[in-house]
Protein backbone atom coordinates (compact mmCIF):
# COMPACT_ATOMS: atom_id res chain seq x y z
CA UNK A 1 0.00 0.00 0.00
CA UNK A 2 1.21 3.52 -0.77
CA UNK A 3 1.94 5.71 2.23
CA UNK A 4 -0.27 8.76 2.70
CA UNK A 5 2.75 10.95 3.22
CA UNK A 6 6.34 9.99 2.69
CA UNK A 7 9.20 12.36 3.51
CA UNK A 8 12.58 11.45 2.07
CA UNK A 9 15.69 13.22 3.36
CA UNK A 10 13.86 16.53 3.76
CA UNK A 11 16.21 19.41 4.53
CA UNK A 12 15.33 23.01 5.34
CA UNK A 13 17.93 25.74 5.61
CA UNK A 14 17.44 29.44 6.32
CA UNK A 15 20.63 31.02 5.10
CA UNK A 16 23.37 29.34 7.09
CA UNK A 17 20.99 27.94 9.72
CA UNK A 18 19.72 24.41 9.17
CA UNK A 19 16.25 23.97 10.66
CA UNK A 20 15.60 20.41 9.43
CA UNK A 21 18.46 17.93 9.00
CA UNK A 22 17.37 15.34 6.45
CA UNK A 23 14.16 13.98 7.94
CA UNK A 24 12.64 10.80 6.51
CA UNK A 25 9.22 9.66 7.69
CA UNK A 26 6.48 7.41 6.37
CA UNK A 27 2.93 8.11 7.48
CA UNK A 28 0.30 5.51 6.69
CA UNK A 29 -3.14 6.21 5.29
CA UNK A 30 -5.75 6.62 8.00
CA UNK A 31 -3.16 7.24 10.67
CA UNK A 32 -3.24 9.78 13.49
CA UNK A 33 0.41 10.81 13.38
CA UNK A 34 1.94 13.34 15.76
CA UNK A 35 5.09 15.42 15.51
CA UNK A 36 6.08 16.05 19.11
CA UNK A 37 8.90 18.18 20.41
CA UNK A 38 9.89 21.30 22.31
CA UNK A 39 9.54 24.68 20.63
CA UNK A 40 12.19 25.26 17.98
CA UNK A 41 12.62 21.55 17.25
CA UNK A 42 11.42 21.96 13.66
CA UNK A 43 8.04 20.24 13.96
CA UNK A 44 6.06 23.23 12.70
CA UNK A 45 8.57 23.86 9.89
CA UNK A 46 8.12 20.26 8.80
CA UNK A 47 4.33 20.62 8.82
CA UNK A 48 4.53 23.90 6.91
CA UNK A 49 6.67 22.21 4.28
CA UNK A 50 4.03 19.51 3.82
CA UNK A 51 1.38 22.25 3.50
CA UNK A 52 3.57 24.18 1.06
CA UNK A 53 4.05 27.39 3.08
CA UNK A 54 7.78 26.70 3.32
CA UNK A 55 9.88 25.56 0.38
CA UNK A 56 12.04 22.49 0.96
CA UNK A 57 15.75 23.05 0.51
CA UNK A 58 16.28 19.44 -0.47
CA UNK A 59 14.42 16.17 -0.36
CA UNK A 60 11.09 14.74 -1.45
CA UNK A 61 7.59 15.00 -0.04
CA UNK A 62 5.32 12.36 -1.51
CA UNK A 63 1.57 12.39 -1.10
CA UNK A 64 0.14 9.00 -2.05
CA UNK A 65 3.14 8.53 -4.31
CA UNK A 66 3.19 11.96 -6.01
CA UNK A 67 6.05 14.32 -5.25
CA UNK A 68 4.40 17.54 -4.08
CA UNK A 69 7.48 19.22 -2.62
CA UNK A 70 7.58 21.89 -5.32
CA UNK A 71 3.86 22.60 -5.69
CA UNK A 72 2.27 25.81 -4.44
CA UNK A 73 0.04 25.30 -1.40
CA UNK A 74 -3.13 25.86 -3.43
CA UNK A 75 -2.25 22.88 -5.60
CA UNK A 76 -1.76 20.43 -2.74
CA UNK A 77 -4.72 18.28 -1.71
CA UNK A 78 -4.01 18.79 1.98
CA UNK A 79 -5.69 21.23 4.35
CA UNK A 80 -4.47 22.88 7.51
CA UNK A 81 -5.96 23.78 10.88
CA UNK A 82 -3.97 26.81 12.02
CA UNK A 83 -2.74 27.43 15.53
CA UNK A 84 -4.67 30.68 15.89
CA UNK A 85 -7.47 29.46 13.60
CA UNK A 86 -6.93 32.13 10.88
CA UNK A 87 -10.68 32.39 10.25
CA UNK A 88 -11.61 35.00 7.64
CA UNK A 89 -12.96 37.81 9.83
CA UNK A 90 -15.18 39.35 7.15
CA UNK A 91 -17.04 36.13 6.37
CA UNK A 92 -19.78 34.36 8.29
CA UNK A 93 -19.08 30.94 9.79
CA UNK A 94 -20.78 29.11 6.92
CA UNK A 95 -18.90 31.16 4.30
CA UNK A 96 -15.64 30.37 6.06
CA UNK A 97 -16.42 26.66 5.96
CA UNK A 98 -17.57 26.86 2.33
CA UNK A 99 -14.52 28.85 1.12
CA UNK A 100 -12.45 25.85 0.05
CA UNK A 101 -15.46 24.36 -1.74
CA UNK A 102 -16.03 27.65 -3.56
CA UNK A 103 -12.39 27.62 -4.70
CA UNK A 104 -12.88 24.06 -5.93
CA UNK A 105 -15.71 25.35 -8.10
CA UNK A 106 -18.72 23.79 -6.38
CA UNK A 107 -22.00 25.61 -7.02
CA UNK A 108 -23.68 27.55 -4.24
CA UNK A 109 -26.28 24.90 -3.36
CA UNK A 110 -23.69 22.12 -3.11
CA UNK A 111 -21.42 24.37 -1.04
CA UNK A 112 -24.16 25.26 1.42
CA UNK A 113 -25.17 21.62 1.83
CA UNK A 114 -21.67 20.32 2.43
CA UNK A 115 -20.64 23.24 4.67
CA UNK A 116 -23.86 22.74 6.63
CA UNK A 117 -23.02 19.07 7.12
CA UNK A 118 -19.52 19.99 8.30
CA UNK A 119 -20.94 22.43 10.86
CA UNK A 120 -23.30 19.70 12.06
CA UNK A 121 -20.32 17.42 12.53
CA UNK A 122 -18.62 19.95 14.82
CA UNK A 123 -21.94 20.80 16.57
CA UNK A 124 -22.13 24.40 15.35
CA UNK A 125 -25.14 24.30 13.02
CA UNK A 126 -26.98 27.11 14.78
CA UNK A 127 -23.92 29.40 14.53
CA UNK A 128 -23.79 29.26 10.72
CA UNK A 129 -24.62 32.94 10.18
CA UNK A 130 -22.50 34.37 13.00
CA UNK A 131 -19.25 36.20 12.36
CA UNK A 132 -16.06 34.56 13.72
CA UNK A 133 -15.52 37.39 16.23
CA UNK A 134 -18.82 36.49 17.87
CA UNK A 135 -17.63 32.99 18.76
CA UNK A 136 -15.63 31.71 21.72
CA UNK A 137 -12.14 30.29 21.23
CA UNK A 138 -13.37 26.70 21.31
CA UNK A 139 -16.11 27.44 18.79
CA UNK A 140 -13.65 29.20 16.47
CA UNK A 141 -11.41 26.16 16.74
CA UNK A 142 -14.24 23.91 15.60
CA UNK A 143 -15.05 26.24 12.69
CA UNK A 144 -11.40 26.05 11.63
CA UNK A 145 -11.64 22.27 11.80
CA UNK A 146 -14.85 22.18 9.76
CA UNK A 147 -13.33 24.57 7.20
CA UNK A 148 -10.25 22.40 6.75
CA UNK A 149 -12.27 19.17 6.53
CA UNK A 150 -14.94 20.50 4.14
CA UNK A 151 -12.94 19.97 0.92
CA UNK A 152 -12.34 16.34 2.02
CA UNK A 153 -8.53 16.57 2.00
CA UNK A 154 -6.45 13.42 1.70
CA UNK A 155 -4.39 14.57 4.65
CA UNK A 156 -5.28 17.04 7.39
CA UNK A 157 -2.49 19.03 8.98
CA UNK A 158 -3.02 20.41 12.48
CA UNK A 159 -0.59 23.01 13.83
CA UNK A 160 -0.90 23.04 17.64
CA UNK A 161 -4.63 23.55 17.23
CA UNK A 162 -5.46 23.14 20.91
CA UNK A 163 -2.74 25.30 22.43
CA UNK A 164 -4.91 28.43 22.69
CA UNK A 165 -7.74 26.66 24.53
CA UNK A 166 -8.15 26.25 28.27
CA UNK A 167 -7.52 22.89 29.92
CA UNK A 168 -11.10 21.50 30.11
CA UNK A 169 -11.84 22.44 26.52
CA UNK A 170 -8.53 21.03 25.39
CA UNK A 171 -9.30 17.69 26.98
CA UNK A 172 -12.78 17.60 25.41
CA UNK A 173 -11.35 18.55 22.00
CA UNK A 174 -8.81 15.72 22.18
CA UNK A 175 -11.59 13.16 22.33
CA UNK A 176 -13.52 14.99 19.63
CA UNK A 177 -10.51 15.16 17.30
CA UNK A 178 -9.73 11.48 17.71
CA UNK A 179 -13.37 10.52 17.05
CA UNK A 180 -13.45 12.79 14.01
CA UNK A 181 -10.30 11.23 12.63
CA UNK A 182 -11.70 7.73 13.04
CA UNK A 183 -15.06 8.67 11.51
CA UNK A 184 -13.65 10.50 8.49
CA UNK A 185 -10.79 8.08 7.88
CA UNK A 186 -8.56 11.02 6.94
CA UNK A 187 -4.86 10.92 7.78
CA UNK A 188 -4.13 13.48 10.52
CA UNK A 189 -0.69 14.97 11.01
CA UNK A 190 -0.76 16.73 14.33
CA UNK A 191 1.92 19.05 15.68
CA UNK A 192 2.19 19.63 19.42
CA UNK A 193 4.65 20.30 22.21
CA UNK A 194 2.22 18.78 24.72
CA UNK A 195 3.20 15.17 25.35
CA UNK A 196 -0.07 14.30 27.05
CA UNK A 197 -1.93 15.41 23.92
CA UNK A 198 0.41 13.32 21.79
CA UNK A 199 0.18 10.22 23.97
CA UNK A 200 -3.63 10.24 24.25
CA UNK A 201 -4.52 10.77 20.58
CA UNK A 202 -1.81 9.41 18.34
CA UNK A 203 -1.45 6.10 16.59
CA UNK A 204 2.23 6.92 16.19
CA UNK A 205 4.43 9.74 17.39
CA UNK A 206 7.64 11.18 15.96
CA UNK A 207 9.64 12.81 18.74
CA UNK A 208 11.72 15.65 17.32
CA UNK A 209 14.59 17.70 18.65
CA UNK A 210 16.97 20.13 16.98
CA UNK A 211 15.68 19.47 13.48
CA UNK A 212 15.96 15.70 13.70
CA UNK A 213 13.53 12.87 14.36
CA UNK A 214 14.72 11.18 17.55
CA UNK A 215 12.29 8.29 17.61
CA UNK A 216 9.13 7.14 15.88
CA UNK A 217 6.70 4.78 17.54
CA UNK A 218 3.43 4.27 19.35
CA UNK A 219 2.80 6.06 22.61
CA UNK A 220 3.79 2.88 24.45
CA UNK A 221 6.99 2.48 22.42
CA UNK A 222 8.32 5.93 23.04
CA UNK A 223 7.32 5.97 26.69
CA UNK A 224 8.49 2.51 27.66
CA UNK A 225 11.37 1.93 25.30
CA UNK A 226 12.89 5.34 24.56
CA UNK A 227 15.83 5.10 22.17
CA UNK A 228 17.88 7.89 23.62
CA UNK A 229 18.37 10.26 26.47
CA UNK A 230 16.36 13.09 24.86
CA UNK A 231 13.26 10.95 24.33
CA UNK A 232 13.40 9.44 27.82
CA UNK A 233 13.78 12.85 29.38
CA UNK A 234 11.22 14.66 27.21
CA UNK A 235 8.44 12.09 27.49
CA UNK A 236 7.07 11.85 30.99
CA UNK A 237 9.13 11.93 34.12
CA UNK A 238 12.23 9.83 34.52
CA UNK A 239 15.32 9.25 36.63
CA UNK A 240 18.40 9.53 34.47
CA UNK A 241 21.45 7.94 36.06
CA UNK A 242 25.01 7.76 34.78
CA UNK A 243 26.10 4.10 34.93
CA UNK A 244 29.19 2.07 34.13
CA UNK A 245 28.47 -0.96 31.95
CA UNK A 246 31.07 -3.71 32.56
CA UNK A 247 29.91 -6.44 30.28
CA UNK A 248 27.11 -7.49 27.97
CA UNK A 249 26.21 -11.15 27.76
CA UNK A 250 23.17 -12.83 26.19
CA UNK A 251 21.42 -9.50 25.66
CA UNK A 252 21.84 -8.43 29.29
CA UNK A 253 24.11 -5.64 30.41
CA UNK A 254 25.73 -5.65 33.82
CA UNK A 255 26.46 -2.29 35.32
CA UNK A 256 27.12 -0.32 38.48
CA UNK A 257 24.72 2.40 39.61
CA UNK A 258 26.02 5.60 41.19
CA UNK A 259 26.75 4.64 44.77
CA UNK A 260 28.03 1.23 43.78
CA UNK A 261 24.84 -0.81 43.53
CA UNK A 262 25.05 -3.55 40.85
CA UNK A 263 22.24 -4.01 38.30
CA UNK A 264 21.54 -5.98 35.16
CA UNK A 265 18.99 -5.05 32.54
CA UNK A 266 18.09 -6.24 29.05
CA UNK A 267 19.93 -4.46 26.28
CA UNK A 268 20.33 -5.51 22.68
CA UNK A 269 23.15 -3.29 21.58
CA UNK A 270 24.94 -1.77 24.58
CA UNK A 271 28.70 -1.63 24.64
CA UNK A 272 30.79 -1.49 27.80
CA UNK A 273 31.43 2.06 29.01
CA UNK A 274 29.58 4.97 30.48
CA UNK A 275 25.88 5.23 29.60
CA UNK A 276 22.65 6.85 30.70
CA UNK A 277 20.09 4.66 32.41
CA UNK A 278 16.42 5.65 32.58
CA UNK A 279 14.20 4.43 35.39
CA UNK A 280 10.56 5.54 35.36
CA UNK A 281 9.44 6.70 38.85
CA UNK A 282 6.24 4.62 38.76
CA UNK A 283 8.12 1.38 38.03
CA UNK A 284 9.90 1.48 41.36
CA UNK A 285 8.40 0.23 44.60
CA UNK A 286 9.49 0.80 48.17
CA UNK A 287 10.30 -2.48 49.88
CA UNK A 288 12.23 -3.18 53.07
CA UNK A 289 13.95 -6.01 51.19
CA UNK A 290 15.15 -3.67 48.39
CA UNK A 291 18.93 -3.68 48.16
CA UNK A 292 19.20 -0.27 46.48
CA UNK A 293 19.04 2.24 49.33
CA UNK A 294 17.88 5.84 49.20
CA UNK A 295 17.24 8.65 51.69
CA UNK A 296 13.88 10.47 51.52
CA UNK A 297 14.12 14.26 51.12
CA UNK A 298 10.50 15.16 50.75
CA UNK A 299 7.11 13.67 49.87
CA UNK A 300 4.92 15.68 47.49
CA UNK A 301 1.19 15.08 47.60
CA UNK A 302 -0.37 15.08 44.10
CA UNK A 303 -3.87 13.76 44.82
CA UNK A 304 -3.99 10.49 42.92
CA UNK A 305 -0.26 10.03 43.37
CA UNK A 306 2.52 10.69 45.82
CA UNK A 307 5.93 11.76 44.64
CA UNK A 308 8.83 10.70 46.85
CA UNK A 309 11.93 12.81 46.24
CA UNK A 310 14.98 10.95 47.49
CA UNK A 311 18.73 10.61 47.08
CA UNK A 312 20.85 7.57 46.33
CA UNK A 313 23.95 6.79 48.38
CA UNK A 314 26.14 9.07 46.23
CA UNK A 315 23.64 11.92 46.41
CA UNK A 316 22.07 11.64 42.91
CA UNK A 317 18.40 12.60 43.05
CA UNK A 318 15.90 9.80 42.55
CA UNK A 319 12.13 10.16 42.29
CA UNK A 320 9.58 7.48 43.08
CA UNK A 321 5.89 7.69 42.31
CA UNK A 322 3.43 5.86 44.55
CA UNK A 323 -0.28 5.43 44.01
CA UNK A 324 -2.22 7.11 46.74
CA UNK A 325 -4.03 3.88 47.74
CA UNK A 326 -5.32 3.03 51.21
CA UNK A 327 -2.61 0.42 51.69
CA UNK A 328 0.27 2.70 50.69
CA UNK A 329 2.64 3.47 53.53
CA UNK A 330 4.00 6.96 53.15
CA UNK A 331 7.70 7.20 53.98
CA UNK A 332 8.88 9.92 56.35
CA UNK A 333 11.36 12.60 55.31
CA UNK A 334 14.86 11.59 56.39
CA UNK A 335 14.06 7.87 56.44
CA UNK A 336 16.25 5.39 54.57
CA UNK A 337 14.22 3.20 52.26
CA UNK A 338 14.90 0.15 50.15
CA UNK A 339 13.95 0.31 46.47
CA UNK A 340 12.76 -2.57 44.37
CA UNK A 341 13.06 -2.26 40.58
CA UNK A 342 10.54 -4.27 38.56
CA UNK A 343 11.89 -6.31 35.68
CA UNK A 344 12.11 -3.95 32.69
CA UNK A 345 11.92 -0.82 34.82
CA UNK A 346 15.41 0.26 33.83
CA UNK A 347 16.37 1.02 30.24
CA UNK A 348 19.86 1.61 28.97
CA UNK A 349 19.96 4.54 26.54
CA UNK A 350 22.05 5.46 23.57
CA UNK A 351 23.30 9.07 23.72
Amino acid at each position, binding site marked *: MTAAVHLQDVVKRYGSVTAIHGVSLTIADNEFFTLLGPSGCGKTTLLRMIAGFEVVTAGEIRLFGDDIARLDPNHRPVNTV*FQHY*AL*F*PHMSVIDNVA*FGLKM*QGLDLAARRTRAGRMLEMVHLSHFADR*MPAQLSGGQQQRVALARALA*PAPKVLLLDEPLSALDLKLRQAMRVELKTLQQETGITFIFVTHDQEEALTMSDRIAVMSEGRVQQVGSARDIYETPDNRFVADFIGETNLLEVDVHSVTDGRASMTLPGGHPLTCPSASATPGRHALSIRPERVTIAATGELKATVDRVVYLGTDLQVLSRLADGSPFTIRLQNAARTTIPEAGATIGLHLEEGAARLLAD
Partner: protein
Amino acid sequence: MAGGDDSWRPLARPLLIPIWVVIGVFSLLPVLLMAVYSFLTKEFRGGVEWDFTLAAYDQFFVTRGLFGDEPAQIEWTYITIFWRSIWQALICTALCLLIGFPTAWFIATRPAQSRGIWLFLITIPYWVNLLIRTVSLKFLIRDNGPLNEGLMALGLINDPLPLVNTNLAVQLGLFYSYLPFMVLPIYAAVERYNFALSEAAADLYASRWTTLREIVLPVVKPGLIAGCILVFVPALGAFLAPDLLGGAKTFMIGSLIDEQFKGSQGNWPFGAAASMILMTLVLIVLVFYARAASREGAA
Protein backbone atom coordinates in the same frame (compact mmCIF):
# COMPACT_ATOMS: atom_id res chain seq x y z
CA MET B 1 -22.53 48.64 42.07
CA ALA B 2 -19.35 46.77 42.88
CA GLY B 3 -16.31 48.89 43.46
CA GLY B 4 -16.97 51.67 40.94
CA ASP B 5 -16.07 55.17 42.07
CA ASP B 6 -18.67 57.50 40.59
CA SER B 7 -17.64 60.61 42.48
CA TRP B 8 -16.09 62.16 39.36
CA ARG B 9 -19.40 62.07 37.46
CA PRO B 10 -20.64 65.56 38.36
CA LEU B 11 -17.33 66.85 36.97
CA ALA B 12 -17.73 65.13 33.61
CA ARG B 13 -19.63 67.95 31.93
CA PRO B 14 -17.41 70.82 33.08
CA LEU B 15 -14.34 68.83 32.06
CA LEU B 16 -15.69 68.51 28.53
CA ILE B 17 -16.00 72.29 28.12
CA PRO B 18 -12.52 72.81 26.57
CA ILE B 19 -13.28 70.24 23.87
CA TRP B 20 -16.54 71.94 23.03
CA VAL B 21 -14.81 75.30 22.90
CA VAL B 22 -12.21 73.96 20.46
CA ILE B 23 -14.80 72.28 18.26
CA GLY B 24 -17.02 75.36 18.43
CA VAL B 25 -14.38 77.97 17.68
CA PHE B 26 -12.34 76.07 15.12
CA SER B 27 -14.91 73.85 13.41
CA LEU B 28 -18.47 75.03 13.80
CA LEU B 29 -18.00 78.80 13.91
CA PRO B 30 -16.10 79.14 10.59
CA VAL B 31 -18.64 76.94 8.82
CA LEU B 32 -21.49 78.91 10.33
CA LEU B 33 -19.80 82.16 9.29
CA MET B 34 -19.40 80.85 5.76
CA ALA B 35 -23.06 79.80 5.68
CA VAL B 36 -24.19 83.26 6.81
CA TYR B 37 -21.87 85.07 4.35
CA SER B 38 -23.24 83.04 1.45
CA PHE B 39 -26.61 84.73 2.00
CA LEU B 40 -25.28 88.29 2.21
CA THR B 41 -24.78 90.96 -0.46
CA LYS B 42 -21.44 91.54 -2.11
CA GLU B 43 -19.70 94.82 -1.42
CA PHE B 44 -17.24 96.30 -3.91
CA ARG B 45 -13.56 95.88 -3.06
CA GLY B 46 -14.40 92.71 -1.12
CA GLY B 47 -16.35 92.34 2.08
CA VAL B 48 -20.10 92.07 2.53
CA GLU B 49 -23.16 94.15 3.26
CA TRP B 50 -25.62 92.81 5.79
CA ASP B 51 -28.44 92.42 3.29
CA PHE B 52 -30.01 88.99 3.14
CA THR B 53 -30.19 87.64 -0.44
CA LEU B 54 -29.98 84.42 -2.47
CA ALA B 55 -27.98 86.22 -5.17
CA ALA B 56 -24.81 84.16 -4.67
CA TYR B 57 -26.60 80.84 -5.20
CA ASP B 58 -28.55 82.35 -8.05
CA GLN B 59 -25.29 83.41 -9.71
CA PHE B 60 -23.90 79.92 -9.29
CA PHE B 61 -26.79 77.99 -10.84
CA VAL B 62 -28.73 80.45 -13.00
CA THR B 63 -27.88 82.76 -15.90
CA ARG B 64 -30.03 85.45 -17.48
CA GLY B 65 -27.69 86.36 -20.29
CA LEU B 66 -24.82 88.80 -20.36
CA PHE B 67 -26.98 91.80 -19.41
CA GLY B 68 -29.36 89.97 -17.10
CA ASP B 69 -32.41 90.56 -19.27
CA GLU B 70 -32.93 87.13 -20.86
CA PRO B 71 -35.09 84.28 -19.50
CA ALA B 72 -33.45 82.28 -16.68
CA GLN B 73 -31.38 79.31 -17.80
CA ILE B 74 -29.05 76.90 -16.08
CA GLU B 75 -25.61 78.42 -15.69
CA TRP B 76 -23.16 75.70 -16.79
CA THR B 77 -19.89 77.55 -16.11
CA TYR B 78 -19.58 76.71 -12.44
CA ILE B 79 -21.24 73.30 -12.66
CA THR B 80 -18.64 72.43 -15.31
CA ILE B 81 -15.86 73.57 -12.99
CA PHE B 82 -17.36 71.45 -10.20
CA TRP B 83 -17.72 68.47 -12.47
CA ARG B 84 -14.11 68.83 -13.66
CA SER B 85 -12.96 69.05 -10.04
CA ILE B 86 -14.86 65.95 -9.03
CA TRP B 87 -13.53 64.09 -12.05
CA GLN B 88 -9.93 65.19 -11.36
CA ALA B 89 -10.27 64.28 -7.68
CA LEU B 90 -11.69 60.84 -8.59
CA ILE B 91 -8.86 60.14 -11.03
CA CYS B 92 -6.34 61.34 -8.45
CA THR B 93 -7.88 59.02 -5.83
CA ALA B 94 -7.82 56.08 -8.23
CA LEU B 95 -4.18 56.72 -9.17
CA CYS B 96 -3.13 57.12 -5.55
CA LEU B 97 -4.93 53.87 -4.71
CA LEU B 98 -3.29 52.04 -7.60
CA ILE B 99 0.20 53.17 -6.62
CA GLY B 100 -0.38 53.59 -2.88
CA PHE B 101 -1.60 50.08 -2.15
CA PRO B 102 1.44 48.23 -3.57
CA THR B 103 3.70 50.82 -1.92
CA ALA B 104 2.03 50.40 1.48
CA TRP B 105 2.09 46.62 1.05
CA PHE B 106 5.77 46.71 0.22
CA ILE B 107 6.60 48.80 3.28
CA ALA B 108 4.41 46.77 5.64
CA THR B 109 6.05 43.52 4.55
CA ARG B 110 9.63 44.73 5.12
CA PRO B 111 11.43 43.65 8.31
CA ALA B 112 10.20 45.72 11.25
CA GLN B 113 13.42 47.69 11.65
CA SER B 114 13.53 48.95 8.03
CA ARG B 115 9.83 49.96 7.85
CA GLY B 116 10.57 53.20 9.69
CA ILE B 117 13.11 54.18 7.04
CA TRP B 118 10.66 53.57 4.20
CA LEU B 119 7.93 55.57 5.94
CA PHE B 120 10.44 58.33 6.54
CA LEU B 121 11.29 58.41 2.82
CA ILE B 122 7.59 58.67 1.98
CA THR B 123 7.09 61.63 4.32
CA ILE B 124 10.31 63.54 3.51
CA PRO B 125 8.75 65.70 0.73
CA TYR B 126 6.22 66.91 3.32
CA TRP B 127 8.91 68.79 5.15
CA VAL B 128 8.98 71.18 2.22
CA ASN B 129 6.17 73.65 1.66
CA LEU B 130 3.51 72.48 -0.80
CA LEU B 131 3.86 75.69 -2.82
CA ILE B 132 7.59 75.16 -3.32
CA ARG B 133 7.05 71.55 -4.31
CA THR B 134 4.37 72.44 -6.82
CA VAL B 135 6.52 75.14 -8.38
CA SER B 136 9.43 72.68 -8.60
CA LEU B 137 7.18 70.24 -10.36
CA LYS B 138 6.37 72.97 -12.88
CA PHE B 139 10.06 73.58 -13.52
CA LEU B 140 10.53 69.86 -13.97
CA ILE B 141 7.87 69.42 -16.65
CA ARG B 142 7.99 72.76 -18.52
CA ASP B 143 9.08 72.92 -22.18
CA ASN B 144 12.78 73.54 -21.40
CA GLY B 145 12.72 71.62 -18.10
CA PRO B 146 14.84 68.54 -17.34
CA LEU B 147 12.10 66.08 -18.34
CA ASN B 148 11.63 67.45 -21.87
CA GLU B 149 15.32 68.22 -22.34
CA GLY B 150 16.20 64.71 -21.24
CA LEU B 151 13.68 63.06 -23.54
CA MET B 152 14.90 65.18 -26.45
CA ALA B 153 18.54 64.45 -25.67
CA LEU B 154 17.69 60.75 -25.76
CA GLY B 155 16.06 61.33 -29.13
CA LEU B 156 12.72 59.95 -27.97
CA ILE B 157 10.90 63.16 -28.94
CA ASN B 158 11.70 66.02 -31.33
CA ASP B 159 9.62 68.76 -29.76
CA PRO B 160 8.98 69.27 -26.05
CA LEU B 161 5.81 67.63 -24.74
CA PRO B 162 3.29 70.37 -23.91
CA LEU B 163 2.70 69.34 -20.30
CA VAL B 164 2.24 72.61 -18.42
CA ASN B 165 -1.30 74.04 -18.44
CA THR B 166 -2.90 70.68 -19.14
CA ASN B 167 -5.20 68.46 -17.09
CA LEU B 168 -2.37 65.94 -17.04
CA ALA B 169 -0.07 68.43 -15.30
CA VAL B 170 -2.76 69.26 -12.73
CA GLN B 171 -3.34 65.55 -12.21
CA LEU B 172 0.37 64.98 -11.71
CA GLY B 173 0.44 67.79 -9.15
CA LEU B 174 -2.56 66.41 -7.26
CA PHE B 175 -1.22 62.86 -7.32
CA TYR B 176 2.16 64.00 -6.05
CA SER B 177 0.62 66.12 -3.30
CA TYR B 178 -1.74 63.51 -1.88
CA LEU B 179 -0.07 60.10 -2.42
CA PRO B 180 1.19 59.83 1.19
CA PHE B 181 -2.34 60.36 2.50
CA MET B 182 -3.18 57.13 0.69
CA VAL B 183 -0.06 55.23 1.68
CA LEU B 184 -0.14 55.88 5.42
CA PRO B 185 -3.65 54.60 6.32
CA ILE B 186 -3.24 51.58 4.03
CA TYR B 187 0.11 50.87 5.61
CA ALA B 188 -1.51 50.95 9.05
CA ALA B 189 -4.15 48.45 7.89
CA VAL B 190 -1.72 46.11 6.11
CA GLU B 191 0.64 46.14 9.06
CA ARG B 192 -2.16 44.73 11.23
CA TYR B 193 -3.11 42.19 8.56
CA ASN B 194 -2.69 38.61 9.75
CA PHE B 195 -0.73 36.85 7.01
CA ALA B 196 -1.96 33.50 8.27
CA LEU B 197 -5.23 34.46 6.52
CA SER B 198 -3.43 34.44 3.17
CA GLU B 199 -1.89 31.08 4.03
CA ALA B 200 -5.32 29.76 4.99
CA ALA B 201 -6.74 30.95 1.67
CA ALA B 202 -3.89 29.33 -0.29
CA ASP B 203 -4.37 26.19 1.77
CA LEU B 204 -8.03 26.18 0.67
CA TYR B 205 -6.99 26.28 -3.02
CA ALA B 206 -7.23 30.05 -3.64
CA SER B 207 -4.74 31.46 -6.15
CA ARG B 208 -2.73 34.57 -5.25
CA TRP B 209 -5.06 36.79 -7.22
CA THR B 210 -8.18 35.29 -5.61
CA THR B 211 -6.59 35.63 -2.18
CA LEU B 212 -5.97 39.31 -2.84
CA ARG B 213 -9.52 39.89 -4.05
CA GLU B 214 -11.45 37.73 -1.58
CA ILE B 215 -9.37 38.00 1.59
CA VAL B 216 -6.74 40.75 1.63
CA LEU B 217 -8.72 43.62 0.11
CA PRO B 218 -11.90 43.06 2.18
CA VAL B 219 -9.87 42.76 5.39
CA VAL B 220 -7.80 45.93 4.83
CA LYS B 221 -10.81 47.80 3.39
CA PRO B 222 -11.08 50.30 6.28
CA GLY B 223 -7.55 51.48 5.44
CA LEU B 224 -8.38 51.73 1.74
CA ILE B 225 -11.50 53.78 2.43
CA ALA B 226 -9.74 56.06 4.91
CA GLY B 227 -7.00 56.65 2.31
CA CYS B 228 -9.54 57.39 -0.43
CA ILE B 229 -11.35 59.94 1.74
CA LEU B 230 -8.09 61.56 2.82
CA VAL B 231 -7.09 61.95 -0.84
CA PHE B 232 -10.45 62.71 -2.46
CA VAL B 233 -11.59 65.47 -0.11
CA PRO B 234 -8.50 67.72 -0.28
CA ALA B 235 -7.97 66.94 -3.99
CA LEU B 236 -11.51 68.15 -4.65
CA GLY B 237 -10.80 71.51 -3.02
CA ALA B 238 -7.17 71.83 -4.15
CA PHE B 239 -6.13 75.18 -5.66
CA LEU B 240 -2.32 75.20 -5.70
CA ALA B 241 -1.83 72.48 -8.31
CA PRO B 242 -4.53 73.76 -10.70
CA ASP B 243 -3.34 77.36 -10.23
CA LEU B 244 0.34 76.71 -10.85
CA LEU B 245 0.30 73.76 -13.22
CA GLY B 246 -2.99 74.31 -15.03
CA GLY B 247 -4.51 76.97 -17.19
CA ALA B 248 -7.94 78.38 -17.96
CA LYS B 249 -9.19 75.02 -19.17
CA THR B 250 -8.16 73.22 -16.00
CA PHE B 251 -9.80 75.57 -13.52
CA MET B 252 -11.02 73.78 -10.36
CA ILE B 253 -13.35 74.69 -7.49
CA GLY B 254 -10.49 75.44 -5.15
CA SER B 255 -9.17 78.12 -7.48
CA LEU B 256 -12.67 79.50 -8.05
CA ILE B 257 -13.21 79.94 -4.30
CA ASP B 258 -9.69 81.23 -3.82
CA GLU B 259 -10.28 84.00 -6.37
CA GLN B 260 -13.47 85.19 -4.69
CA PHE B 261 -11.58 86.20 -1.58
CA LYS B 262 -8.68 87.94 -3.34
CA GLY B 263 -8.45 91.69 -3.81
CA SER B 264 -11.11 93.93 -5.28
CA GLN B 265 -12.17 91.43 -7.93
CA GLY B 266 -13.47 89.14 -5.19
CA ASN B 267 -17.02 88.26 -4.31
CA TRP B 268 -17.22 86.96 -0.75
CA PRO B 269 -20.85 85.79 -0.78
CA PHE B 270 -20.28 83.91 -4.03
CA GLY B 271 -17.10 82.31 -2.68
CA ALA B 272 -18.96 81.37 0.49
CA ALA B 273 -21.82 79.88 -1.52
CA ALA B 274 -19.41 77.84 -3.65
CA SER B 275 -17.74 76.60 -0.43
CA MET B 276 -21.11 75.60 1.02
CA ILE B 277 -21.98 73.69 -2.17
CA LEU B 278 -18.59 71.96 -2.11
CA MET B 279 -19.00 71.08 1.55
CA THR B 280 -22.46 69.67 0.91
CA LEU B 281 -21.03 67.45 -1.81
CA VAL B 282 -18.30 66.17 0.49
CA LEU B 283 -20.79 65.57 3.30
CA ILE B 284 -23.01 63.53 0.99
CA VAL B 285 -20.03 61.32 0.09
CA LEU B 286 -19.12 60.87 3.76
CA VAL B 287 -22.72 60.08 4.79
CA PHE B 288 -22.92 57.39 2.11
CA TYR B 289 -19.66 55.94 3.39
CA ALA B 290 -20.76 56.06 7.03
CA ARG B 291 -24.03 54.31 6.19
CA ALA B 292 -22.25 51.62 4.19
CA ALA B 293 -19.79 51.12 7.03
CA SER B 294 -22.46 50.85 9.72
CA ARG B 295 -24.47 48.42 7.59
CA GLU B 296 -21.40 46.24 7.34
CA GLY B 297 -20.69 46.54 11.06
CA ALA B 298 -24.23 45.37 11.86
CA ALA B 299 -24.03 42.33 9.57
